[in-house]
């Protein structure tokens, strides 16, 4: 293999990326030296890449890229670019370069060559193994694996695989619909009450009989058969809300028609906005329902019954949605698109 160092670019500072070399010594010998692969860098977007069009403005590639380019020109086989290049390989065989290297790198190369234990390593272990919790009290948080091998240098524990599984992010652990509807149910900032109401609503949906779908009021396409709904109350709620959610709202723009007359302009809504509108309609008609029984469960019961009547197509919310859509269709003419150039 040709030397990777291009003598022409020698004056340029060598890109040095610090590696977790001390940790490497603690790894078992059988492991592949992990610092040779650059897991943190993207293959397609190397350090030297730049979107600049002008050639003189483009930065030079790093050492290996340069070496590869040179090799390509000279018709030889260059270094493999998919992997990073260790520094000692770069400077191998060139004593002058080695002498000019910074002290830390020289030390690192020396340490690598000699098989003696690294400086600062103790003859005794400083880690402790956790005592089995036979005698002590089990509080349920000992289920973490006792030893997690770090696959990636620099990471203390194993790096999680992305995307993270559902519910594992602490701030987004609950279903988005549940979260949004709970917040919309909340009054005076009393979230706990809203959460209790939400739980009661879902419980009511779960114990209510299987809904009969009205073919005149179709639910969102792809809805599961109604027999699946009671046992999946979250889906039931989502289906009810999404089915009556309007696609647009009407904005009345002042003066757009001339002479101070407001013009209705349909504006498309985003997913959360659509759901919010639907929940507020449902809330309005739930509040108007008559309360049967007494106690804390009354509101939740009314809301749940309204949801059921939405799914069954009996609710007046459907009329409201249809009216908005009808107006929206009529107001389509008011949309003024920008002229094409």
């Amino acid at each position, binding site marked *: 293999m040709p030397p990777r160092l291009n003598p022409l670019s020698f004056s340029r500072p060598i890109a040095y990326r610090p590696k977790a070399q001390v940790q490497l010594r603690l790894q078992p010998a059988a492991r592949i030296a992990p610092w040779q692969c650059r897991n943190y860098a993207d293959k397609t977007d190397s350090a030297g890449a730049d979107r600049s069009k002008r050639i003189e403005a483009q930065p030079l590639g790093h050492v290996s890229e340069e070496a590869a380019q040179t090799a390509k020109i000279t018709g030889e086989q260059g270094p493999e670019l998919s992997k990073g290049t260790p520094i000692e390989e770069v400077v191998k065989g060139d004593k002058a370069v080695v002498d000019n290297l910074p002290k830390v790198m020289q030390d690192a190369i020396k340490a690598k060559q000699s098989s003696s234990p690294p400086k600062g390593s103790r003859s005794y272990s400083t880690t402790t193994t956790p005592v089995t919790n036979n005698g002590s009290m089990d*509080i*349920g948080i000992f289920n973490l694996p006792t030893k997690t091998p770090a696959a990636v240098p620099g990471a203390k524990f194993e790096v999680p695989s992305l995307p993270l599984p559902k519910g594992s992010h602490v701030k987004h652990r609950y279903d988005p619909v549940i979260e949004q509807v709970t917040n919309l149910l909340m009054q005076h900032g009393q979230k706990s009450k809203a959460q209790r109401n939400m739980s009661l609503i879902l419980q009511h949906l779960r114990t209510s009989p299987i809904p009969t779908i009205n073919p005149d009021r179709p639910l969102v396409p792809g809805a599961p058969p109604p027999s699946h709904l009671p046992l999946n109350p979250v889906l039931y709620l989502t289906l009810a809300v999404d089915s009556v959610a309007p696609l647009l709202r009407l904005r009345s723009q002042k003066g757009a028609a001339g002479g101070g007359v407001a013009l209705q302009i349909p504006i498309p809504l985003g997913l959360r906005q659509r759901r919010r509108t639907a929940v507020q309609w449902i809330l309005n008609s739930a509040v108007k329902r008559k309360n049967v029984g007494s106690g804390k469960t009354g509101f939740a019961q009314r809301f749940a019954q309204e949801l059921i009547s939405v799914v069954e197509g009996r609710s007046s919310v459907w009329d409201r949605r249809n009216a908005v859509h009808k107006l929206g269709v009529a107001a389509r003419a008011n949309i003024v698109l920008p002229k094409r150039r």
Partner: protein
Amino acid sequence: MSSSMSLRGLSQLSLDAVSRSAIPTRSLMIAPQASCFSTSAARYANPTMKKKGMGAAPKKGVKSLRITKSNKDAAGSGKRPAPGERKAMRKRIVLSNDNALEVAGLQDLTAENALDASHQGKVRGIPEEAVDALRAVEAFKPRQGWSLFRRPAVLMRKETMELAQIMKKIESSEKSKKESKRIIVYGERMGGKSTLLLQGITMAFLRKWTIINLPEGQDIVNAHTDYAPLPGSQPLQYTQDTYTAGLLSQIVKANQGFLAATKVSAKHDLPLPLSKGATLKQLAELGAANPEAAWPVFVALWTELTQPGRPPILVGVDGLSHIMRESEYLNSNVKPIHAHDLTIVRHFVDLFSGKTALPNGGLVLGVTSGSNSPANSAIELSIAGAEARQSKSALPQWNPYKAIDQRAVECLKNVDVLKVSGISKEEARSIMDYYAESGVLRAQVNEGFVSERWSLAGMGNIGELERATVRLRV
């Protein structure tokens, strides 16, 4: 001016006012009869009818101004719920959910295996007839999660097995000297204390014990039912006839078989005639139908139940701390009556303190409540004392700065305790498998999930576990 003078002057003024205002509408005769400062005459007077058709007809084309809505529309024109209907709705107990899946291979408790130790950590169904009895004695509570599952089933946890052991021991004790146990069940809120009582009643029902359950201590002492002094009692005691009649009808429903098959053996002096050779069921029904005779009938029934050769008795009460203090009832001196002076409570308390023996053996369970219990230092002290006795450590000191009910302390001196703590992870796994098979828990039940939820539930508090898994409580 003296105070009496000023009062008279005021009263004169008010009389004048009454007479003056009364002139246009009513006759003058009413006014002098009205006492000073009284509004009764005005309030109870017949409402003055509005004269119709007196005003001029509205002119054509003129809108009459109506600022206020009519009162009828504001109040809602719908039918009002009947008295008690809304409370009945709130306290309704639903024991099945048609949407929940049938759990395959769910075994029922039977008379033969009810007390077996092999149930430990398993979920077992409650048989149909036991469910009826449990419903009759109000062992199911409205806040429990029975309405989520296909049919009632319970987890046979460690404490249940302890109770089963105790019942087994009582059953197998010698005929001449039958054993009886008196236990306070205590533990954390939502920890399953009432459910433990329910399990005890289930096992007792299956083993053909006699069951007497006071479903809620608060209902006895909160002065919602009538009371009357018991003639000839010293110190004075009070009977609650309606409550006792209800209790008798519950006893009849829960112990149908035994009561119907057994004849009255002793002679009782009852205020009502009872036919010769009547069964115990007829005796109890007599009391249930005639509240004024309920207490003598209850005493007679108890005498019959404690005759030699009769089955052991399970007596349970939920909400113990309510009946270990003064009740809401007042005596003739308008002083509160102590709960122990109410005959039903007294009967239970005598059993609980060991003053009255259970000659056929039996179990007296007093269950404390975590969510509805007034602070009761007597119970706390007796629990601490019983714990110290069981662990053979030093007895706790009574805090002299705390108000304590001496009668309650006397009663609770020598009772055992059973602590209901969190369930183990194995038990949690078993109940969560049941949840998942019922279709109400939509998650893969594996070790990680179980221990996560077990920790979330405060180290296996079963109520919290249900909340964290089934109730979808965020």
